[in-house]
């Protein structure tokens, strides 16, 4: 490993790029250095609808766990009735709730933290949609499939890309602002498009470098102003409810303020709980928000929904590696899209910066593993050359890369003078709950949208497709949920599926006393024991 000061000197000396022989073919780079392929990182699932599928060990422990509640706990619990229950109030959840409510459904929007408190607000790069004259839906489709190593579901990808332009129109109508081309009039200008990593056309639409935050701003306002939606903040779902036919009939929520359970019964239930970064797979830091603990995955899987590509996670190439208190925090791809380069400790470029994220991340991990990384106060990484970028495009840091500059100030340095030390950070769950093009899972009455769902990204997500997924599939699933809503009040709603689950655990020889969902990461020191006695033995 090359010390920080030496690396800075090497950078200043402008070392030439290494000989071509030093670069590895994509496949061996991924096989050798991507965390998904590390030996021992995966284990096959032993029970459930996707038994046999490979899964990160930490996630498998949750998927193999027993429930936090049992039948006796919900006797006498207050009941809320809705036509559509949406679990999770990030981008996908809010879009779905809005769509269902506008279709006439009474919607309950329950969230573990607060509305918008999720990964959507942290999406910096932008949202993809094939709106350019030289671009096409076919190219967006091809780019998405190729980036995902052809493992995505073609029907889902087709739905995603063809919804793209309309999703942008919808967002604009909701009041979202996008960057316009230089010199364009405030009204009637052309959308400013950037070329996202892994794409063949300029297709990334953005609002500065806080596109997700701007999107969430308008969604939040819309949700609060829509009369058919009741928002329950600080109400995590701890179990799903079933009807006697095995369909989903709502969820058991935990009211964190009153410290009691609440039953939310519904005709259709939509999981929009996001990803699993806070499981810190293989010990990686994460760019994810505090609530990303795979709760929705655990609950849907226990009820019989299948999962796909659950062994595949995206490690964002440029997470902060130093200072330690900001470890894992994301530096948007916007910096690289604007021309920022990555340098190893020898001051050399080692990878095409705008390649697919998995390839760039694996290349960075290779530099570190093979001793060409940079060490600063015990933190290892490579350099993101922000001074070089400012030199080439004076003023860009202050004007366009606002979030990046803000982060540098929080870290205590000037990005125009000093490069960032970066390292891949656990960023996105590529797979998830298997859905169809309407967002329906295999379980009647259970739908899913957003990062929690699987099939859209294959084994690697293209940047900008996550926000598009939130809008496109939030709208699709929200509409399907409003259609699926049940007219008659369900009878015999409860947690009868847990008996079958426990029988499965016994048959597989798995312990009964491990409990999930996790709800909060262990280091959060949230004591749920008083209200959920069984939560004390966490998975």
């Amino acid at each position, binding site marked *: 490993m090359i010390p920080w000061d030496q690396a800075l000197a090497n950078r200043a000396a402008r070392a030439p790029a290494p000989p071509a022989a030093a670069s590895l073919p994509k496949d061996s780079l991924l096989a050798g250095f991507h965390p998904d392929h590390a030996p021992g990182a995966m284990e096959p699932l032993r029970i459930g609808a996707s038994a046999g599928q490979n899964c990160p060990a930490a996630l498998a422990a949750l998927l193999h766990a027993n429930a936090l509640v049992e*039948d006796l706990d919900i006797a006498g619990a207050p009941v809320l009735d809705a036509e559509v229950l949406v679990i999770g109030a990030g981008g996908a959840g809010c879009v779905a709730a809005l769509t269902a409510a506008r279709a006439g459904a009474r919607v309950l929007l329950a969230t573990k933290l607060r509305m918008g408190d999720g990964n959507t607000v942290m999406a910096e790069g932008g949202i993809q949609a094939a709106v350019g004259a030289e671009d096409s839906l076919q190219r967006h489709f091809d780019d998405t499939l190729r980036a995902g190593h052809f493992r995505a579901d073609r029907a889902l990808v087709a739905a995603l890309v063809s919804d793209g332009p309309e999703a942008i129109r919808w967002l604009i109508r909701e009041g979202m602002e996008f960057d316009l081309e230089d010199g364009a009039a405030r009204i009637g200008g052309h959308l400013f498009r950037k070329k996202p990593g892994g794409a063949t056309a300029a297709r990334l639409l953005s609002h500065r470098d806080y596109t997700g935050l701007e999107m969430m701003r308008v969604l939040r306002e819309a949700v609060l102003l829509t009369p058919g939606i009741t928002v329950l903040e600080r109400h995590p779902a701890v179990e799903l409810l079933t009807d006697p036919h095995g369909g989903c009939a709502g969820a058991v929520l935990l009211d964190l303020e009153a410290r009691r359970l609440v039953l939310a019964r519904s005709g259709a239930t939509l999981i929009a709980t996001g990803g699993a970064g806070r499981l810190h797979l293989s010990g990686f830091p994460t760019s994810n928000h505090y609530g990303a603990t795979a709760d929705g995955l655990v609950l849907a899987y226990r009820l019989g929904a299948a999962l796909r590509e659950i062994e595949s996670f995206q490690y964002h190439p440029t997470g902060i590696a130093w200072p330690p208190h900001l470890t894992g925090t994301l530096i948007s791809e916007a910096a690289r899209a604007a021309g920022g380069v990555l340098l190893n400790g020898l001051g050399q470029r080692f990878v095409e910066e705008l390649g697919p994220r998995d390839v760039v991340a694996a290349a960075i991990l290779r530099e570190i593993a093979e001793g060409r990384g940079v060490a600063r106060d015990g933190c290892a990484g490579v350099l993101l050359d922000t001074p070089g970028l400012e030199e080439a495009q004076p003023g860009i840091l202050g004007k366009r890369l606002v979030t990046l500059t803000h982060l540098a100030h929080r870290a205590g340095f000037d990005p125009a003078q000093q490069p960032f030390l970066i390292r891949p950070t656990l960023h996105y769950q590529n797979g998830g709950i298997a859905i169809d093009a309407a967002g329906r899972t295999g379980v009647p009455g259970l739908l899913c949208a957003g990062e929690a769902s699987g099939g859209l990204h294959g084994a690697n997500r293209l940047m900008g497709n996550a926000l598009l997924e939130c809008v496109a599939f939030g709208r699709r699933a929200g509409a399907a949920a409003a259609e699926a809503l049940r007219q008659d009040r369900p009878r015999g709603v409860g947690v009868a599926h847990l008996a079958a689950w426990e029988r499965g655990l016994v048959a597989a020889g798995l312990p009964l006393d491990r409990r999930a969902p996790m709800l909060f990461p262990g280091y959060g020191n949230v004591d749920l024991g008083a209200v959920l006695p069984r939560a004390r033995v966490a998975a």
Partner: protein
Amino acid sequence: MILTAPGLRVGADLGAHLAAGGGAGLAAALRDPAAIIPVIEAAGLRGLGGAGFPTHRKWGAVAAQPGPGKWVLCNGNEDEPGTFKDRFLLAETPHQVIEGALLAALAVRAAHVALYVNPREAATVATLRDAAACWSGHPLLAEVARAVGEPVAIAVVESSGLYIGGEETAAVASVEGRFPFPSLKPPFPAEAGVHGRPTLVNNVETLAQAGHILAHGADWYRALGRGGAAGTKLFSLSGDVLRPGLHELPMGTTLRELVFDHGGGILGGRAFKAVFTGGPSNTLLTAADLDAPMDFDGLRARGSRLGTGAMIVVGEGTSILRKTAEYVAFFAASSCGQCPPCKIGTFQVARLLERIEAGTGRPGDLAALRNLAALLPGSGRCGLVDGAATVLASSLRTFPEEYARAVRG
């Protein structure tokens, strides 16, 4: 055991049924039709649909009525929560059932055999239709017709699928093509049943046993049971056990054996709490009843009933209140509405339980429930309201703390 023996699980294939030893009971009966009822009596066969009424007395009553045109109605409506024995017999071994029905037709000299089946599972109905078609023109059926003295026809009749359609007078109404309203007794179906003709109504499981009794004799059958009880019983085991499912066990087997030996014990090592039996319309069995023999008299001595043999096991983690509310809601939705106390009473009880279960009950609600539990029994044409009141009263009496806790919130 006999009903679930793998050899006879041949589906609709009559040839395979006869090759596996089926048909022996019918053959024996054809040799001496007059001996059928005395053999059934000696075997101690009782109505396995839940009532436990001595089978030979029903058969004797219909036999004593004048022909022609009498009916045998094989009752396969089965819609009680937790009961899944008849659908097994009809789907897996329908010829056992048809053979028993023909045997009964022979004994009571009936010309019509109606296989009355719940349409819930289309595959089961299809199998039964195929199975019944195998008998048309079969020499065994011709022999039965000769002994009865008139042509014998087997018909598959789909029920309404409603729970109430399993009550015997409602079943008669259904076969006649009317809505399954239960009617006052007397007259009993044995006197005036389908189209006013004397009708023998028996449960699927009861009829399936008859062939084995005739084939192997009354003493052999009695010896299958334990204590004073005769034969075998199909137990539909469900709820919080490790291995739920259908178990054919000697009549008189203890609850402990069923739950812990055959069912693998309570799920997750929890403690045993209670069992809802039969409808589930009977008094709850508790840990004190674990060593009670499960037969008609044994459970009656404990103040409960064997019912259909459904044993819905409740472990420590499951709420009696929620289960009771679920079953009473089922009865309320199943009430045919003819008798006001049943229609209004079951609705009221269901409403009160739903309120308590949802955490909005008041202490006065418990008094109202006790009041209704005392008031309602005996107020309907059939036993539906009695069942709802019995299960309510029993859960209030045995688990008052669960109700109190929910009302306190």
